[in-house]
């Protein structure tokens, strides 16, 4: 492994670890009261869906029509079958076929 690559990988690992523990640290310490009642708790309750939508929506918009149809197929499969694996497979399959069809 090259020295400069090792340095980059270790640097990436260090800052990632920092982001992984920093939230728990603030949540256990300084922010504990804020997160467990009132407005803080309501913000946290709405957070999971908001984060997922914020990851998914720009990715689908960037991917264009093929990704939008694949997303609908994937979500529809899961809503109907509750089979998560099947919906991932359907999403990947539809994305692959439509991207090829559109020459992307």
């Amino acid at each position: 492994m090259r020295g400069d690559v090792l340095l980059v990988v270790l640097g990436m690992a260090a800052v990632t670890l920092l982001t992984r523990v920093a939230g728990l640290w603030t949540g256990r310490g300084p922010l504990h009261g804020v997160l467990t009642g009132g407005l803080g708790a309501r913000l946290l309750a709405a957070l999971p869906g908001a984060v997922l939508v914020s990851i998914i929506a720009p990715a689908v918009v960037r991917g264009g029509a093929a990704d939008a149809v694949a997303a609908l197929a994937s979500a529809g499969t899961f809503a109907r079958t509750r089979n998560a694996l099947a919906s991932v497979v359907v999403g990947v399959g539809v994305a692959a076929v439509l991207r090829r069809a559109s020459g992307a």
Partner: protein
Amino acid sequence: MTARADAWRGARRAGALVAGDLAWGLAFGALARASGLTAAESAAMSGVVFAGTAQVAALGLWPHGGAPFPTAAIVLTTLVVNLRLVLLGASLAPSLARTPARRAYAAMWFLSDETWALAAAERARGNEAGAAFVAGSGGALWLAWVGGSVAGYAIGAAVGHPERWGLDFAATAAMLVLLVTLRRGRGDAIPWLAAGAASVAAAWLLPGSWYILIGAAVGSAAGALTAAPDASPESAHAG
């Protein structure tokens, strides 16, 4: 004993996301090979960083030929892309409040969008999702991510552009599954639409990955402001 049972439950619940991470890992391995990393460098990065979006962003900055190494730029980009993990870690803190610090922090090594969303979905089902659950689901996802990266590197030449196989879509599909799992009803419409509009606009206007943090903040605020006052704090805490 119960910790072991919780860890297994976490690993089992991770099922579909394991498949998603495997496919996404294949895509990363193939991209890493195309970007000029060695097999060991690609595997090491997946093993110790374990953050797909940040790793793909790093490959985007990887130097070609003999260009100087943009170490600071890659590390800074990794930090920005992963800032959302601070938010996710803070949101897990209330459910880990009674877990001993050493165990709670050790579980955070596995914190990712997927492990965190699995924990949220598990709590939405009315089950506990503590440190053992996070470590169990995270361990399964880590194996899939590293295994997928190694396999993707090995078959990289055959895969070519992973987008052509839709492999990069696996991550989106897995997130969609979690989103459907989290859905509580009509009350989700306003925060989710707000998050979608804000993140898409931010992705269009701003460089990098700030759009995740911006969309999450706007959607979360919209949810907090529109939630029925009686929905808090007990039901919010349970969810």
